[in-house]
């Protein structure tokens, strides 16, 4: 775009009247700045918050995820699913019709998965017990201040697991080895470690 006599425009712009802002404007700015200054300590602390490095297994899992093909629902797959669904409906309808006529006996299969833990009595190592107690105490003190959403639950769970573990050890010492009790104690120790892990993250 070409402009002729641009200097005229510029002279006119230079002559535009100045307007004085209302006096109350500065008061508003000063109030905002007072508020901003009061938050200086917060902003400084927010900039210094600790940083955390992800554990190495995260990258390993990303690599593994990238090596798997991304799931894309293609039109061909859509047809395959539709064909499979139609087949399933047809087979189900046939079974329902013929099974209903002959009153075939109903057979139901059930199964349960049990964790395959080796039955042995976990040894209570004094150093570990002292560390668990220290974590529990520290967490309880912080819980009193911060009131974590699940804090009371964790404190209660640790107390129950400590008591259950002590009782199982006492029974095992009194009456000798019992495979079922040893398994129970192992499960209690695993749960206790999980609770301590959660507490440690909070600390």
């Amino acid at each position, binding site marked *: 775009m070409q402009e002729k006599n641009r200097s005229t425009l510029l002279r006119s712009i230079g002559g535009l009247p100045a307007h004085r802002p209302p006096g109350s404007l500065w008061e508003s700015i000063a109030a905002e700045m007072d508020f901003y200054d009061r938050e200086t300590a*917060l902003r400084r*602390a927010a900039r210094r918050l600790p940083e*955390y490095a*992800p554990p190495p297994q*995260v990258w390993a899992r990303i690599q593994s995820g*990238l090596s798997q093909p991304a799931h894309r629902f293609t039109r061909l797959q859509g047809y395959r699913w539709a064909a499979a669904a139609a087949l399933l409906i047809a087979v189900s309808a046939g079974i329902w019709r013929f099974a209903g006529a002959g009153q075939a006996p109903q057979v139901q299969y059930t199964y349960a998965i049990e964790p395959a833990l080796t039955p042995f009595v976990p040894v209570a190592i004094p150093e570990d017990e002292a560390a668990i107690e220290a974590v529990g105490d520290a967490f309880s003190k912080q819980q009193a*201040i911060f009131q974590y*959403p699940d804090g009371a639950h964790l404190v209660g769970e640790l107390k129950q697991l400590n008591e259950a573990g002590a009782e199982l050890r006492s029974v095992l010492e009194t009456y000798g080895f019992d495979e079922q009790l040893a398994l129970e104690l192992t499960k209690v120790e695993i749960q206790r470690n999980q609770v301590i892990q959660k507490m440690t993250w909070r600390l």
Partner: protein
Amino acid sequence: MTETELIQGCLREDRLAQRALYDKYSQAMYSMAYRITGDFELANDTLQEAFIKVFRHLGDFRKESTLGAWIKTIVLRTALGKVKKQQNFAPEESIPADYAVDWGDFIEADYLEQAIQALPPGYRTVFLLIEVEGYSHQEVADLLGISVGTSKSQLFYAKRRLREMLQKML
């Protein structure tokens, strides 16, 4: 390696370039994911899912923002998705007209971190997004599907709760 070279390497599915990109942003993103979810396990899952999305959709990056900001949005949305059920944003409450939270001269960052983690999830998310990550109330409202007024009142109550906790710690 420049950012453009890094992007081109990632688009060629060059693992070294992908690793370099991950190394460049993982710590900051992981810290943000941990603060939003309040759980290291969830932060691990968030980072994994988010970076897989980043690498698979890097071709969609249109350079309308910086690469870091684009990755941050993906990590943030993934983290928010993980804690969606825990988030409970109380309806907009009135803020006292003469409100002022005095933070004093100095706040120990480690204390602040502990206090942030102790906030209820709704307060914590709004506080982190605005005060730590630098989002505006409008952006937070859009991200979380809440009103600007709710965002402001959540921030106010988050700060008041933080101040109370920090005072107890000193």
